[in-house]
Protein backbone atom coordinates (compact mmCIF):
# COMPACT_ATOMS: atom_id res chain seq x y z
CA UNK A 1 0.00 0.00 0.00
CA UNK A 2 2.82 2.31 0.96
CA UNK A 3 4.48 1.89 -2.41
CA UNK A 4 1.20 2.38 -4.22
CA UNK A 5 0.67 5.61 -2.29
CA UNK A 6 4.19 6.77 -3.19
CA UNK A 7 3.55 5.85 -6.81
CA UNK A 8 0.22 7.69 -6.86
CA UNK A 9 1.80 10.68 -5.18
CA UNK A 10 4.49 10.73 -7.81
CA UNK A 11 1.89 10.61 -10.58
CA UNK A 12 -0.13 13.31 -8.91
CA UNK A 13 2.98 15.51 -8.68
CA UNK A 14 3.66 14.87 -12.35
CA UNK A 15 0.15 15.86 -13.42
CA UNK A 16 0.21 18.83 -11.08
CA UNK A 17 3.40 20.03 -12.70
CA UNK A 18 2.06 19.51 -16.20
CA UNK A 19 -1.20 21.29 -15.48
CA UNK A 20 0.23 24.16 -13.46
CA UNK A 21 2.85 24.77 -16.15
CA UNK A 22 0.20 24.42 -18.79
CA UNK A 23 1.73 26.80 -21.34
CA UNK A 24 5.10 25.13 -21.15
CA UNK A 25 3.45 21.72 -21.40
CA UNK A 26 1.41 22.84 -24.41
CA UNK A 27 4.54 24.26 -26.04
CA UNK A 28 6.36 20.94 -25.67
CA UNK A 29 3.33 18.98 -26.89
CA UNK A 30 2.95 21.25 -29.93
CA UNK A 31 6.65 20.92 -30.67
CA UNK A 32 6.56 17.13 -30.43
CA UNK A 33 3.32 16.94 -32.45
CA UNK A 34 4.79 19.20 -35.13
CA UNK A 35 7.83 17.00 -35.54
CA UNK A 36 5.66 13.88 -35.60
CA UNK A 37 3.56 15.47 -38.37
CA UNK A 38 6.69 16.59 -40.21
CA UNK A 39 8.03 13.03 -40.14
CA UNK A 40 4.69 11.73 -41.45
CA UNK A 41 4.51 14.40 -44.16
CA UNK A 42 7.99 13.61 -45.44
CA UNK A 43 7.32 9.90 -45.46
CA UNK A 44 3.92 10.37 -47.07
CA UNK A 45 5.35 12.61 -49.79
CA UNK A 46 7.98 10.02 -50.67
CA UNK A 47 5.36 7.28 -50.66
CA UNK A 48 3.03 9.35 -52.80
CA UNK A 49 5.75 10.04 -55.35
CA UNK A 50 6.70 6.36 -55.26
CA UNK A 51 3.09 5.34 -55.95
CA UNK A 52 2.87 7.90 -58.72
CA UNK A 53 5.99 6.39 -60.24
CA UNK A 54 4.49 2.91 -60.04
CA UNK A 55 1.28 4.19 -61.63
CA UNK A 56 3.29 5.71 -64.43
CA UNK A 57 5.16 2.47 -64.94
CA UNK A 58 1.86 0.66 -65.05
CA UNK A 59 0.22 3.11 -67.41
CA UNK A 60 3.04 3.30 -69.88
CA UNK A 61 3.35 0.15 -71.88
CA UNK A 62 6.69 -0.13 -73.57
CA UNK A 63 7.32 -2.40 -76.52
CA UNK A 64 10.38 -4.22 -77.69
CA UNK A 65 10.63 -4.12 -81.47
CA UNK A 66 13.26 -6.15 -83.28
CA UNK A 67 14.74 -4.32 -86.25
CA UNK A 68 17.30 -5.06 -88.90
CA UNK A 69 20.92 -4.33 -88.15
CA UNK A 70 20.55 -0.72 -89.35
CA UNK A 71 17.64 -0.20 -86.99
CA UNK A 72 15.46 0.80 -89.94
CA UNK A 73 12.99 -1.95 -90.83
CA UNK A 74 10.83 -3.98 -88.53
CA UNK A 75 9.22 -6.21 -91.14
CA UNK A 76 10.39 -8.82 -93.58
CA UNK A 77 13.37 -9.50 -91.38
CA UNK A 78 13.86 -13.24 -92.06
CA UNK A 79 14.89 -13.80 -88.50
CA UNK A 80 16.12 -17.22 -87.47
CA UNK A 81 13.56 -19.27 -85.59
CA UNK A 82 15.95 -19.63 -82.61
CA UNK A 83 15.14 -16.04 -81.67
CA UNK A 84 11.58 -17.06 -80.93
CA UNK A 85 12.84 -19.10 -77.99
CA UNK A 86 14.09 -15.92 -76.27
CA UNK A 87 10.54 -14.55 -76.21
CA UNK A 88 8.46 -17.66 -75.93
CA UNK A 89 10.19 -20.27 -73.80
CA UNK A 90 9.60 -20.63 -70.09
CA UNK A 91 13.30 -20.97 -69.30
CA UNK A 92 14.04 -17.62 -70.95
CA UNK A 93 14.86 -14.73 -68.63
CA UNK A 94 12.19 -12.71 -70.41
CA UNK A 95 9.48 -15.14 -69.34
CA UNK A 96 7.08 -13.33 -67.08
CA UNK A 97 8.56 -9.95 -67.96
CA UNK A 98 6.86 -9.61 -71.35
CA UNK A 99 3.51 -10.28 -72.94
CA UNK A 100 1.71 -9.57 -76.21
CA UNK A 101 4.44 -11.42 -78.10
CA UNK A 102 4.03 -10.73 -81.80
CA UNK A 103 5.82 -13.25 -84.00
CA UNK A 104 4.65 -14.05 -87.45
CA UNK A 105 6.03 -15.65 -90.53
CA UNK A 106 5.89 -13.98 -93.94
CA UNK A 107 3.12 -16.23 -95.28
CA UNK A 108 5.00 -17.22 -98.40
CA UNK A 109 4.55 -20.98 -97.97
CA UNK A 110 1.46 -22.31 -99.65
CA UNK A 111 -0.41 -25.46 -98.75
CA UNK A 112 -3.30 -27.42 -100.20
CA UNK A 113 -6.18 -27.67 -97.84
CA UNK A 114 -8.45 -30.69 -97.85
CA UNK A 115 -11.35 -31.90 -95.85
CA UNK A 116 -10.77 -35.07 -93.91
CA UNK A 117 -12.52 -37.05 -96.64
CA UNK A 118 -9.74 -35.91 -98.96
CA UNK A 119 -11.89 -33.37 -100.77
CA UNK A 120 -9.66 -30.55 -101.99
CA UNK A 121 -10.87 -27.14 -100.92
CA UNK A 122 -8.31 -24.48 -101.71
CA UNK A 123 -4.65 -23.56 -101.78
CA UNK A 124 -3.87 -21.12 -99.01
CA UNK A 125 -0.79 -19.27 -97.76
CA UNK A 126 0.38 -20.53 -94.35
CA UNK A 127 1.13 -17.93 -91.72
CA UNK A 128 2.71 -18.91 -88.40
CA UNK A 129 1.49 -16.45 -85.88
CA UNK A 130 1.40 -15.89 -82.11
CA UNK A 131 -1.69 -13.70 -81.99
CA UNK A 132 -5.09 -13.40 -83.57
CA UNK A 133 -4.64 -11.76 -86.95
CA UNK A 134 -6.18 -8.36 -87.31
CA UNK A 135 -7.91 -6.39 -89.94
CA UNK A 136 -5.24 -3.76 -90.45
CA UNK A 137 -2.54 -6.33 -91.07
CA UNK A 138 -4.23 -9.13 -92.98
CA UNK A 139 -7.59 -7.73 -93.94
CA UNK A 140 -9.46 -10.24 -91.83
CA UNK A 141 -11.92 -10.08 -89.01
CA UNK A 142 -11.62 -13.29 -87.11
CA UNK A 143 -14.39 -15.03 -85.25
CA UNK A 144 -12.93 -17.36 -82.63
CA UNK A 145 -14.51 -20.54 -81.38
CA UNK A 146 -15.99 -20.38 -77.92
CA UNK A 147 -13.47 -21.27 -75.24
CA UNK A 148 -10.46 -20.27 -77.33
CA UNK A 149 -8.45 -17.12 -76.95
CA UNK A 150 -5.32 -15.70 -78.47
CA UNK A 151 -3.29 -17.73 -75.98
CA UNK A 152 -3.80 -20.81 -78.11
CA UNK A 153 -1.42 -19.24 -80.62
CA UNK A 154 1.38 -19.06 -78.07
CA UNK A 155 1.48 -22.85 -77.94
CA UNK A 156 2.22 -25.45 -80.58
CA UNK A 157 -1.16 -27.12 -80.93
CA UNK A 158 -2.48 -28.14 -84.35
CA UNK A 159 -5.17 -25.52 -84.62
CA UNK A 160 -5.85 -22.99 -87.31
CA UNK A 161 -7.92 -20.08 -88.51
CA UNK A 162 -9.24 -20.46 -92.04
CA UNK A 163 -11.62 -18.61 -94.38
CA UNK A 164 -15.24 -19.24 -93.59
CA UNK A 165 -15.77 -20.92 -96.91
CA UNK A 166 -13.11 -23.51 -96.17
CA UNK A 167 -14.51 -24.93 -92.96
CA UNK A 168 -16.82 -24.17 -90.11
CA UNK A 169 -15.53 -23.54 -86.61
CA UNK A 170 -14.91 -26.81 -84.81
CA UNK A 171 -14.22 -28.76 -87.98
CA UNK A 172 -10.93 -30.27 -89.07
CA UNK A 173 -8.86 -29.62 -92.15
CA UNK A 174 -5.92 -31.46 -93.72
CA UNK A 175 -2.91 -29.57 -94.94
CA UNK A 176 -0.69 -31.00 -97.61
CA UNK A 177 2.43 -29.19 -98.69
CA UNK A 178 3.38 -31.67 -101.41
CA UNK A 179 2.50 -35.01 -102.81
CA UNK A 180 5.15 -36.86 -100.77
CA UNK A 181 4.48 -35.07 -97.54
CA UNK A 182 2.25 -36.61 -94.91
CA UNK A 183 -0.96 -34.54 -94.49
CA UNK A 184 -1.44 -32.77 -91.18
CA UNK A 185 -4.78 -32.43 -89.48
CA UNK A 186 -5.66 -29.07 -87.90
CA UNK A 187 -8.66 -28.17 -85.83
CA UNK A 188 -10.42 -25.01 -86.95
CA UNK A 189 -10.67 -22.66 -83.97
CA UNK A 190 -11.51 -19.55 -85.89
CA UNK A 191 -12.76 -18.36 -89.24
CA UNK A 192 -12.83 -15.17 -91.19
CA UNK A 193 -14.65 -13.85 -94.24
CA UNK A 194 -12.05 -13.39 -96.92
CA UNK A 195 -14.08 -10.98 -98.95
CA UNK A 196 -14.59 -8.61 -96.13
CA UNK A 197 -11.56 -6.43 -96.72
CA UNK A 198 -9.07 -6.87 -99.49
CA UNK A 199 -5.40 -7.33 -98.63
CA UNK A 200 -3.16 -5.76 -101.24
CA UNK A 201 -6.35 -5.44 -103.24
CA UNK A 202 -6.62 -9.19 -103.22
CA UNK A 203 -8.78 -11.43 -101.14
CA UNK A 204 -7.13 -12.71 -98.02
CA UNK A 205 -6.38 -16.38 -98.44
CA UNK A 206 -4.38 -17.36 -95.41
CA UNK A 207 -4.44 -20.25 -93.03
CA UNK A 208 -3.15 -19.07 -89.66
CA UNK A 209 -1.44 -21.58 -87.34
CA UNK A 210 0.38 -21.15 -84.04
CA UNK A 211 3.91 -20.03 -84.83
CA UNK A 212 5.59 -22.87 -82.94
CA UNK A 213 3.50 -25.46 -84.78
CA UNK A 214 4.18 -23.72 -88.06
CA UNK A 215 7.91 -23.62 -87.33
CA UNK A 216 7.91 -27.32 -86.46
CA UNK A 217 5.81 -28.70 -89.34
CA UNK A 218 5.11 -26.20 -92.06
CA UNK A 219 8.01 -23.75 -92.35
CA UNK A 220 10.23 -24.12 -95.41
CA UNK A 221 13.16 -22.25 -93.87
CA UNK A 222 14.59 -21.58 -90.43
CA UNK A 223 14.82 -17.87 -91.14
CA UNK A 224 11.08 -17.61 -91.09
CA UNK A 225 10.24 -14.78 -88.69
CA UNK A 226 8.83 -11.83 -90.58
CA UNK A 227 8.20 -9.60 -87.61
CA UNK A 228 9.08 -9.83 -83.92
CA UNK A 229 7.71 -7.55 -81.22
CA UNK A 230 6.47 -7.81 -77.67
CA UNK A 231 5.35 -5.67 -74.77
CA UNK A 232 7.15 -5.21 -71.47
CA UNK A 233 4.79 -5.98 -68.59
CA UNK A 234 6.64 -3.99 -65.95
CA UNK A 235 8.26 -0.86 -67.30
CA UNK A 236 10.55 -0.77 -64.27
CA UNK A 237 12.42 -3.70 -65.75
CA UNK A 238 13.30 -1.89 -68.98
CA UNK A 239 17.00 -1.57 -68.16
CA UNK A 240 17.25 -5.16 -66.98
CA UNK A 241 15.56 -6.34 -70.18
CA UNK A 242 17.74 -4.11 -72.33
CA UNK A 243 20.86 -5.58 -70.80
CA UNK A 244 19.58 -9.08 -71.38
CA UNK A 245 18.71 -8.40 -75.02
CA UNK A 246 22.23 -7.16 -75.68
CA UNK A 247 23.35 -10.77 -75.48
CA UNK A 248 21.41 -11.42 -78.68
CA UNK A 249 20.94 -8.12 -80.45
CA UNK A 250 22.97 -5.10 -81.49
CA UNK A 251 22.53 -2.19 -79.10
CA UNK A 252 20.32 0.53 -80.59
CA UNK A 253 23.18 3.00 -80.30
CA UNK A 254 25.42 0.63 -82.28
CA UNK A 255 22.95 0.09 -85.13
CA UNK A 256 24.82 -0.09 -88.42
CA UNK A 257 28.01 -1.18 -86.70
CA UNK A 258 27.63 -4.92 -86.48
CA UNK A 259 29.60 -6.36 -83.59
CA UNK A 260 32.03 -9.06 -84.56
CA UNK A 261 31.47 -12.63 -83.44
CA UNK A 262 28.40 -14.55 -82.42
CA UNK A 263 25.63 -13.89 -79.98
CA UNK A 264 24.46 -16.33 -77.34
CA UNK A 265 22.35 -18.18 -79.89
CA UNK A 266 25.59 -18.83 -81.75
CA UNK A 267 24.33 -16.65 -84.60
CA UNK A 268 25.84 -13.51 -86.06
CA UNK A 269 24.67 -10.23 -84.66
CA UNK A 270 22.24 -9.38 -87.44
CA UNK A 271 19.43 -7.61 -85.70
CA UNK A 272 19.04 -4.69 -83.44
CA UNK A 273 16.16 -3.79 -81.19
CA UNK A 274 14.48 -0.68 -79.98
CA UNK A 275 12.53 0.01 -76.83
CA UNK A 276 10.68 3.25 -77.46
CA UNK A 277 10.74 4.58 -73.91
CA UNK A 278 11.13 8.29 -74.63
CA UNK A 279 7.64 9.16 -73.41
CA UNK A 280 8.02 7.02 -70.34
CA UNK A 281 11.31 8.68 -69.45
CA UNK A 282 9.80 12.11 -69.97
CA UNK A 283 7.19 11.30 -67.38
CA UNK A 284 9.16 9.27 -64.88
CA UNK A 285 12.47 11.10 -64.86
CA UNK A 286 11.09 14.20 -63.07
CA UNK A 287 9.30 11.96 -60.56
CA UNK A 288 12.46 9.95 -60.02
CA UNK A 289 14.43 13.18 -59.55
CA UNK A 290 11.86 14.37 -56.99
CA UNK A 291 12.05 11.09 -55.12
CA UNK A 292 15.85 11.22 -55.16
CA UNK A 293 15.82 14.74 -53.71
CA UNK A 294 13.24 13.78 -51.10
CA UNK A 295 15.24 10.73 -50.15
CA UNK A 296 18.30 12.93 -49.62
CA UNK A 297 16.38 15.50 -47.59
CA UNK A 298 14.20 13.12 -45.62
CA UNK A 299 16.95 11.49 -43.51
CA UNK A 300 18.21 14.96 -42.55
CA UNK A 301 14.76 16.10 -41.52
CA UNK A 302 14.15 12.84 -39.70
CA UNK A 303 17.54 13.02 -37.94
CA UNK A 304 16.92 16.68 -37.12
CA UNK A 305 13.50 15.84 -35.69
CA UNK A 306 14.77 13.05 -33.48
CA UNK A 307 17.72 15.18 -32.40
CA UNK A 308 15.34 17.98 -31.43
CA UNK A 309 13.12 15.49 -29.59
CA UNK A 310 16.17 14.16 -27.77
CA UNK A 311 17.32 17.68 -26.82
CA UNK A 312 13.85 18.88 -25.77
CA UNK A 313 13.42 16.00 -23.35
CA UNK A 314 16.94 16.38 -21.97
CA UNK A 315 16.63 20.12 -21.47
CA UNK A 316 13.16 19.86 -20.00
CA UNK A 317 14.57 17.69 -17.23
CA UNK A 318 17.88 19.52 -16.90
CA UNK A 319 16.11 22.86 -16.41
CA UNK A 320 14.48 21.41 -13.30
CA UNK A 321 17.66 19.98 -11.86
CA UNK A 322 17.36 22.06 -8.69
CA UNK A 323 13.80 20.86 -8.10
CA UNK A 324 14.87 17.23 -8.39
CA UNK A 325 17.89 17.90 -6.18
CA UNK A 326 15.51 19.20 -3.50
CA UNK A 327 13.51 15.99 -3.79
CA UNK A 328 16.71 14.00 -3.27
CA UNK A 329 17.60 16.09 -0.23
CA UNK A 330 14.13 15.44 1.19
CA UNK A 331 14.80 11.73 0.99
CA UNK A 332 13.40 10.83 -2.42
CA UNK A 333 15.20 7.77 -3.76
CA UNK A 334 17.16 7.90 -6.99
CA UNK A 335 14.51 5.72 -8.61
CA UNK A 336 11.72 8.04 -7.45
CA UNK A 337 13.45 11.04 -8.99
CA UNK A 338 14.16 9.05 -12.15
CA UNK A 339 10.52 7.96 -12.38
CA UNK A 340 9.22 11.45 -11.67
CA UNK A 341 11.31 13.13 -14.33
CA UNK A 342 10.86 10.32 -16.86
CA UNK A 343 7.10 10.09 -16.40
CA UNK A 344 6.58 13.75 -17.12
CA UNK A 345 8.44 13.53 -20.41
CA UNK A 346 6.73 10.25 -21.22
CA UNK A 347 3.30 11.87 -20.89
CA UNK A 348 4.31 14.90 -22.94
CA UNK A 349 5.82 12.70 -25.63
CA UNK A 350 2.83 10.37 -25.80
CA UNK A 351 0.36 13.24 -26.00
CA UNK A 352 2.49 15.07 -28.59
CA UNK A 353 3.13 12.09 -30.85
CA UNK A 354 -0.47 10.96 -30.35
CA UNK A 355 -1.82 14.31 -31.54
CA UNK A 356 0.69 14.38 -34.40
CA UNK A 357 -0.21 10.85 -35.48
CA UNK A 358 -3.95 11.49 -35.29
CA UNK A 359 -3.56 14.69 -37.27
CA UNK A 360 -1.52 12.85 -39.90
CA UNK A 361 -4.07 10.04 -39.95
CA UNK A 362 -6.93 12.42 -40.61
CA UNK A 363 -4.90 14.35 -43.18
CA UNK A 364 -3.87 11.30 -45.19
CA UNK A 365 -6.58 8.79 -44.37
CA UNK A 366 -4.17 6.25 -42.92
CA UNK A 367 -0.75 5.80 -41.38
CA UNK A 368 1.66 3.52 -43.14
CA UNK A 369 3.92 1.05 -41.36
CA UNK A 370 6.90 3.18 -42.28
CA UNK A 371 5.29 6.30 -40.77
CA UNK A 372 4.43 4.42 -37.59
CA UNK A 373 7.97 3.05 -37.38
CA UNK A 374 9.45 6.52 -37.77
CA UNK A 375 7.15 7.96 -35.12
CA UNK A 376 8.19 5.11 -32.83
CA UNK A 377 11.86 5.88 -33.49
CA UNK A 378 11.19 9.55 -32.78
CA UNK A 379 9.42 8.55 -29.55
CA UNK A 380 12.26 6.23 -28.60
CA UNK A 381 14.85 8.97 -29.15
CA UNK A 382 12.78 11.48 -27.19
CA UNK A 383 12.50 9.00 -24.34
CA UNK A 384 16.17 8.09 -24.63
CA UNK A 385 17.02 11.75 -23.99
CA UNK A 386 14.68 11.66 -21.01
CA UNK A 387 16.19 8.44 -19.67
CA UNK A 388 19.77 9.68 -19.98
CA UNK A 389 18.98 12.95 -18.25
CA UNK A 390 16.76 11.28 -15.65
CA UNK A 391 19.57 8.88 -14.76
CA UNK A 392 21.99 11.78 -14.51
CA UNK A 393 19.49 13.70 -12.33
CA UNK A 394 18.99 10.66 -10.09
CA UNK A 395 22.74 10.49 -9.50
CA UNK A 396 23.27 14.19 -9.13
CA UNK A 397 25.44 15.77 -6.42
CA UNK A 398 22.68 17.60 -4.61
CA UNK A 399 24.77 20.08 -2.64
CA UNK A 400 26.74 21.03 -5.72
CA UNK A 401 23.53 21.98 -7.49
CA UNK A 402 22.20 23.82 -4.47
CA UNK A 403 25.35 25.89 -4.13
CA UNK A 404 25.46 26.55 -7.87
CA UNK A 405 21.85 27.65 -7.69
CA UNK A 406 22.59 30.09 -4.92
Amino acid sequence: MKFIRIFLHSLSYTFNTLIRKIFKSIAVVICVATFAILICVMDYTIQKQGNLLLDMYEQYKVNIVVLDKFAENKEDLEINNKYASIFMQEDSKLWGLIDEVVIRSNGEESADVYLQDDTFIDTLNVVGITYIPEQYEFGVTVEMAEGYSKDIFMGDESVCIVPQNVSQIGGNVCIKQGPDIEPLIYKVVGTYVPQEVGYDEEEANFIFCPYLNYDQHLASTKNNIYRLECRIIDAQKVTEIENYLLKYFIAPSMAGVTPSGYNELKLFYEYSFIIPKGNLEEVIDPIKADIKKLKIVEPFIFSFSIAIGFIISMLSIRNRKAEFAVMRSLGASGFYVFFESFMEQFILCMVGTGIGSIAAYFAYGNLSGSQINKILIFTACYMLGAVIEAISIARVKVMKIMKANE
Partner: protein
Amino acid sequence: MNDTNILQLDNVNYEYRNKYQSVKAVNSFDYDFKKGLFYAITGKSGSGKTTLLSLMVGLDTPSGGIIKYMGEDLKDMNMDKYRRDNVSLIYQDFNLFPLLTVLENVMYPLQLKGQKKKDIRHLAVEKLAMTGLDESYHKRYPSMLSGGEQQRVAIARALVTGATILLADEPTGNLDTENGDNIVSILKSLAHNEGYCVIVVTHDLDIASVADEVLQLKDGKLIQ
Protein backbone atom coordinates in the same frame (compact mmCIF):
# COMPACT_ATOMS: atom_id res chain seq x y z
CA MET B 1 27.61 7.01 23.67
CA ASN B 2 26.11 9.75 25.73
CA ASP B 3 22.30 9.56 25.21
CA THR B 4 22.17 13.22 24.21
CA ASN B 5 24.72 12.65 21.45
CA ILE B 6 22.78 12.44 18.25
CA LEU B 7 25.38 12.88 15.55
CA GLN B 8 28.98 11.85 16.01
CA LEU B 9 31.71 12.69 13.56
CA ASP B 10 34.83 10.70 14.19
CA ASN B 11 37.99 11.74 12.33
CA VAL B 12 35.96 12.56 9.22
CA ASN B 13 37.84 13.42 6.03
CA TYR B 14 36.63 14.38 2.62
CA GLU B 15 38.88 14.78 -0.33
CA TYR B 16 38.04 16.19 -3.77
CA ARG B 17 40.15 14.76 -6.52
CA ASN B 18 40.42 15.87 -10.06
CA LYS B 19 42.99 15.47 -12.83
CA TYR B 20 45.29 18.13 -11.48
CA GLN B 21 45.00 18.14 -7.71
CA SER B 22 43.38 16.74 -4.62
CA VAL B 23 41.84 19.05 -2.03
CA LYS B 24 41.00 18.08 1.53
CA ALA B 25 37.67 19.83 2.00
CA VAL B 26 37.14 18.26 5.42
CA ASN B 27 40.20 17.32 7.42
CA SER B 28 40.09 15.05 10.49
CA PHE B 29 36.85 16.48 11.78
CA ASP B 30 35.92 15.18 15.24
CA TYR B 31 32.78 16.34 16.94
CA ASP B 32 29.69 15.08 18.75
CA PHE B 33 26.48 17.01 18.17
CA LYS B 34 23.89 16.86 20.92
CA LYS B 35 20.11 17.19 21.07
CA GLY B 36 18.66 20.44 22.29
CA LEU B 37 21.56 22.60 21.20
CA PHE B 38 21.89 25.27 18.58
CA TYR B 39 25.18 25.02 16.67
CA ALA B 40 26.78 27.50 14.32
CA ILE B 41 29.45 26.37 11.89
CA THR B 42 31.40 29.32 10.57
CA GLY B 43 34.33 29.80 8.31
CA LYS B 44 35.41 31.55 5.15
CA SER B 45 34.23 30.50 1.73
CA GLY B 46 35.90 27.26 0.77
CA SER B 47 36.58 26.29 4.36
CA GLY B 48 34.51 23.10 3.92
CA LYS B 49 31.27 24.13 5.65
CA THR B 50 28.93 23.02 2.91
CA THR B 51 30.87 19.82 2.33
CA LEU B 52 30.58 19.01 6.01
CA LEU B 53 26.86 19.71 5.81
CA SER B 54 26.42 17.36 2.81
CA LEU B 55 28.29 14.64 4.71
CA MET B 56 26.09 15.07 7.78
CA VAL B 57 22.89 14.98 5.72
CA GLY B 58 24.06 11.86 3.90
CA LEU B 59 24.26 13.38 0.43
CA ASP B 60 27.94 12.45 0.25
CA THR B 61 30.09 9.83 1.90
CA PRO B 62 33.32 10.69 3.69
CA SER B 63 36.58 9.47 2.22
CA GLY B 64 37.74 8.63 5.72
CA GLY B 65 36.36 8.44 9.24
CA ILE B 66 32.92 7.58 10.58
CA ILE B 67 29.67 9.50 10.92
CA LYS B 68 27.22 7.95 13.36
CA TYR B 69 23.55 8.79 13.87
CA MET B 70 22.37 7.70 17.29
CA GLY B 71 25.35 5.35 17.45
CA GLU B 72 24.72 3.76 14.04
CA ASP B 73 27.23 4.24 11.25
CA LEU B 74 25.64 6.11 8.35
CA LYS B 75 27.37 3.68 5.99
CA ASP B 76 25.10 0.93 7.32
CA MET B 77 21.95 2.98 6.91
CA ASN B 78 19.76 3.63 3.88
CA MET B 79 20.63 7.23 3.12
CA ASP B 80 17.29 8.07 1.49
CA LYS B 81 15.46 6.77 4.54
CA TYR B 82 17.90 8.64 6.82
CA ARG B 83 17.07 11.89 5.02
CA ARG B 84 13.34 11.16 5.05
CA ASP B 85 13.20 10.32 8.77
CA ASN B 86 16.12 11.69 10.72
CA VAL B 87 17.60 14.79 9.21
CA SER B 88 16.22 17.84 7.44
CA LEU B 89 17.91 20.49 5.39
CA ILE B 90 17.02 24.14 5.17
CA TYR B 91 18.54 26.15 2.37
CA GLN B 92 19.49 29.76 1.89
CA ASP B 93 17.30 29.84 -1.25
CA PHE B 94 14.40 28.11 0.54
CA ASN B 95 14.07 25.65 -2.37
CA LEU B 96 10.34 25.23 -2.13
CA PHE B 97 8.55 23.58 -5.00
CA PRO B 98 7.24 26.53 -6.99
CA LEU B 99 4.25 24.67 -8.42
CA LEU B 100 2.99 23.39 -5.08
CA THR B 101 1.06 25.47 -2.59
CA VAL B 102 2.44 26.19 0.87
CA LEU B 103 0.47 23.32 2.38
CA GLU B 104 1.42 20.92 -0.41
CA ASN B 105 5.08 21.86 0.05
CA VAL B 106 4.95 20.98 3.72
CA MET B 107 3.02 17.77 3.07
CA TYR B 108 5.44 16.67 0.37
CA PRO B 109 8.08 14.90 2.56
CA LEU B 110 5.37 12.88 4.28
CA GLN B 111 3.88 11.86 0.97
CA LEU B 112 7.36 10.72 -0.01
CA LYS B 113 7.17 8.39 2.97
CA GLY B 114 3.92 6.96 1.60
CA GLN B 115 1.70 8.36 4.37
CA LYS B 116 -1.99 8.95 3.75
CA LYS B 117 -2.89 12.47 2.66
CA LYS B 118 -5.72 12.81 5.15
CA ASP B 119 -3.39 11.78 8.02
CA ILE B 120 -0.69 14.26 7.22
CA ARG B 121 -2.72 17.34 6.55
CA HIS B 122 -3.22 18.24 10.18
CA LEU B 123 0.48 17.66 10.91
CA ALA B 124 1.48 20.04 8.11
CA VAL B 125 -1.01 22.63 9.39
CA GLU B 126 0.44 22.24 12.88
CA LYS B 127 4.04 22.75 11.75
CA LEU B 128 3.07 25.78 9.68
CA ALA B 129 1.39 27.22 12.75
CA MET B 130 4.59 26.57 14.74
CA THR B 131 6.48 28.78 12.30
CA GLY B 132 3.78 31.45 12.48
CA LEU B 133 1.92 30.77 9.23
CA ASP B 134 -1.83 30.52 9.60
CA GLU B 135 -4.47 29.07 7.26
CA SER B 136 -4.49 32.13 5.04
CA TYR B 137 -1.12 31.04 3.70
CA HIS B 138 -2.02 27.43 2.94
CA LYS B 139 -3.22 27.84 -0.61
CA ARG B 140 -0.65 30.40 -1.65
CA TYR B 141 2.22 29.54 -3.96
CA PRO B 142 5.82 30.29 -2.86
CA SER B 143 6.08 33.10 -5.39
CA MET B 144 3.30 34.89 -3.48
CA LEU B 145 5.29 34.95 -0.23
CA SER B 146 8.07 37.14 1.11
CA GLY B 147 11.54 35.67 1.68
CA GLY B 148 10.93 35.36 5.40
CA GLU B 149 7.60 33.62 4.86
CA GLN B 150 9.16 31.23 2.37
CA GLN B 151 11.88 30.36 4.88
CA ARG B 152 9.20 29.64 7.49
CA VAL B 153 7.54 27.27 5.05
CA ALA B 154 10.92 25.62 4.49
CA ILE B 155 11.35 25.20 8.25
CA ALA B 156 7.83 23.77 8.57
CA ARG B 157 8.70 21.33 5.77
CA ALA B 158 11.88 20.36 7.66
CA LEU B 159 9.98 19.82 10.90
CA VAL B 160 7.09 17.83 9.52
CA THR B 161 9.17 14.71 8.89
CA GLY B 162 9.84 14.20 12.57
CA ALA B 163 13.57 14.56 11.99
CA THR B 164 15.61 15.34 15.10
CA ILE B 165 18.44 17.08 13.32
CA LEU B 166 17.88 20.32 11.48
CA LEU B 167 20.72 21.37 9.21
CA ALA B 168 20.51 24.87 7.79
CA ASP B 169 22.75 26.29 5.13
CA GLU B 170 22.87 30.10 5.47
CA PRO B 171 19.16 30.22 6.40
CA THR B 172 19.17 34.00 6.75
CA GLY B 173 21.39 34.69 3.74
CA ASN B 174 18.53 35.97 1.59
CA LEU B 175 16.55 37.71 4.31
CA ASP B 176 16.50 41.18 5.77
CA THR B 177 17.60 41.65 9.38
CA GLU B 178 14.14 41.49 10.90
CA ASN B 179 13.14 38.32 9.05
CA GLY B 180 16.59 36.87 9.66
CA ASP B 181 16.26 37.45 13.38
CA ASN B 182 12.82 35.85 13.38
CA ILE B 183 14.12 32.76 11.64
CA VAL B 184 17.05 32.49 14.03
CA SER B 185 14.75 32.76 17.00
CA ILE B 186 12.49 30.03 15.55
CA LEU B 187 15.50 27.74 15.03
CA LYS B 188 16.84 28.51 18.49
CA SER B 189 13.46 27.84 20.03
CA LEU B 190 13.24 24.52 18.18
CA ALA B 191 16.55 23.50 19.70
CA HIS B 192 15.90 24.68 23.22
CA ASN B 193 12.14 24.04 23.54
CA GLU B 194 11.54 21.12 21.18
CA GLY B 195 14.85 19.31 21.66
CA TYR B 196 16.04 19.46 18.06
CA CYS B 197 19.72 19.44 17.22
CA VAL B 198 19.98 22.54 15.07
CA ILE B 199 23.18 23.00 13.07
CA VAL B 200 23.48 26.21 11.07
CA VAL B 201 26.21 26.86 8.55
CA THR B 202 26.69 30.62 8.33
CA HIS B 203 28.87 33.59 7.67
CA ASP B 204 26.63 35.69 9.87
CA LEU B 205 28.38 36.56 13.11
CA ASP B 206 25.07 37.55 14.71
CA ILE B 207 23.85 33.97 14.40
CA ALA B 208 27.17 32.72 15.76
CA SER B 209 26.77 35.02 18.72
CA VAL B 210 23.45 33.46 19.74
CA ALA B 211 24.53 29.86 19.11
CA ASP B 212 25.13 27.48 21.99
CA GLU B 213 28.24 26.18 20.28
CA VAL B 214 30.28 27.80 17.51
CA LEU B 215 32.47 25.59 15.34
CA GLN B 216 34.98 27.41 13.21
CA LEU B 217 36.38 25.73 10.14
CA LYS B 218 39.58 26.61 8.34
CA ASP B 219 40.73 24.59 5.37
CA GLY B 220 38.40 21.81 6.41
CA LYS B 221 39.77 21.62 9.92
CA LEU B 222 37.92 22.42 13.10
CA ILE B 223 39.95 25.16 14.74
CA GLN B 224 37.63 26.21 17.53
